[in-house]
């Protein structure tokens, strides 16, 4: 017997269709969120409060007369100094030098970390042999690399970059490896059914699935890179370049504690701002995938 054509376009079906649209609308509703200003305020005020408390504590210690003010100046002396620094072009030149090193070093670390992570996560033998070694490398304090770096590259930019890469690349590689490892098996099965193979499998499934873990690795890698760079600038002083680290060291030598603390604040703020940027990227990424409960 011939299969009879099935005709769904009856009046009854149209009513059903409208009802389904109604049901779907009900399910989609009630997902309102607080406005952006309110959310920004909610995340900002604890930070502002913490800063205020820290500054107050600092001022109290200074007022207590524990140390003379040329050793430990208070906020009322340091912030004006910070203001003078921020209007001084040589300060910006130094900051520019430091940031250039940070960017180049971090970029190199990404290249090395991604290559390392890609190779190790693909090759089973390497995975076993080097997987735990990479994690072990992360525990190495970056400053301990400097004697070797200086032997290899003398007091040069290369020595600093070498240590930044060694500090940051393991975290970045680990992030990538974790992402590849934790690609949900059900998605891998779905990808196989869809016919994703070889390069397409990586492009459309494994890489996007690993992205959140990779960004977490980048964030951690940045923290290591920034610390390595600061250690490097204190140890490897090259000629007349006044980077942030060198400025810090000169300030100590000249017993210019106000400037020393001002530079420390700048270093802290840069570290925090960039960490926040990575956190924001991480959150946006997770939220767009429904991984974030908020």
């Amino acid at each position: 017997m011939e299969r009879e054509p099935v005709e769904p376009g009856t009046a009854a079906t149209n009513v059903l269709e409208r009802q389904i649209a109604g049901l779907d609308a009900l399910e989609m509703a009630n997902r309102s969120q607080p406005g952006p200003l309110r959310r920004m305020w909610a995340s900002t005020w604890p930070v502002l409060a913490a800063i205020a408390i820290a500054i107050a504590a600092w001022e109290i210690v200074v007022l207590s007369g524990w140390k003379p003010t040329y050793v430990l100046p208070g906020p009322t002396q340091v912030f004006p100094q910070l203001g003078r620094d921020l209007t001084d072009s040589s300060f910006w030149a130094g900051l520019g030098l430091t940031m250039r090193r940070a960017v180049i070093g971090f970029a190199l670390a990404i290249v090395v970390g991604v290559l390392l992570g890609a190779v190790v996560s693909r090759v089973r033998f390497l995975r076993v042999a080097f997987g735990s070694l990479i994690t072990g490398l992360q525990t190495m304090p970056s400053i301990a690399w400097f004697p070797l770096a200086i032997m290899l590259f003398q007091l040069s930019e290369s020595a600093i970059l070498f240590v930044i890469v060694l500090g940051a690349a393991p975290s970045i590689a680990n992030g990538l490896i974790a992402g590849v490892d934790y690609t949900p098996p059900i998605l891998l099965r779905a990808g196989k059914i869809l016919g994703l193979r070889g390069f397409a499998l990586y492009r459309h499934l494994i890489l996007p699935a690993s992205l959140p873990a990779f960004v977490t690795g980048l964030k951690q890698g940045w923290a290591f890179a920034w610390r390595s760079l600061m250690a490097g600038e204190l140890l490897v002083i090259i000629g007349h370049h006044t980077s942030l680290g060198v400025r810090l060291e000169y300030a100590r030598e000249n017993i210019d504690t106000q400037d020393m603390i001002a530079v420390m604040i700048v270093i802290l703020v840069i570290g925090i701002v960039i960490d926040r940027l990575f956190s924001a990227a991480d959150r946006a990424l997770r939220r767009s995938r429904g991984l974030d409960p908020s």
Partner: protein
Amino acid sequence: MSATTREPERTTAPPVRIDGVSKAYGTGGGALLALDKVSLSVTPGEFVCILGASGCGKSTLLSIVAGLDRPTLGTVDVGGARVGLMFQEPALFPWLTVAGNVELALRTRGVPKAERRRRAAELLAAVHLDGFGRKRPHQLSGGMRQRVAIARALAQDSDVLLMDEPFGALDAMTRDLLHDELERIWSERSLTVLFVTHNVREAVRLGDRVVLLSSRPGRVVEEFPVPLDRPRRIDDASVATLAGRITDRLREEVGRHGA
């Protein structure tokens, strides 16, 4: 049996042959026999529903037919047909939009970009999700996600479509409508469908044949041809009568384990 009386020119794809398939998970004393010598032959263009209690190995059987798992014993032959599988969970890619998920299935088949867009919109309309293409999967309800998975499975344009409890998470109204839609697509494309369900009436509503599996290990207990004319409705008296008979047999089978 209606399947054997169908005209042969509709049936271009080769049949699906499941031959003595057993699947054991684990080895030695702790091994669990999920499937025990399951044999099933599905004619091209046939709609076969597989019924069985929870845990009887239905998903395992579909994975094996799809080539995702290997049987411990026995063989599966799909004769080179393209096999699509819709998983029990939606398994959508969370970084893609709803339309993006459907388009990816078209893309791996080499459908050009403009065409992909159009086809994805059509398929989403077929599962009554027009207007939701730009949402992310997590913004939809479970039932809506399941419908996206149906659209994605249809986008693969396979010869054999395996569906693992596709309508389990849907409310009755949506489910009835999708029964019509699936039946229409099946008859237009002369698809071969292997459809797993818990719902006996649904099996009778859709299937040319209903295959009943036993639990632990899964074996084919009995096959019920469905000699009812299409289109059917799930609340037809004839559907209910046959479903009643199958339910009795299923109860008997489940009862064996209680004893």
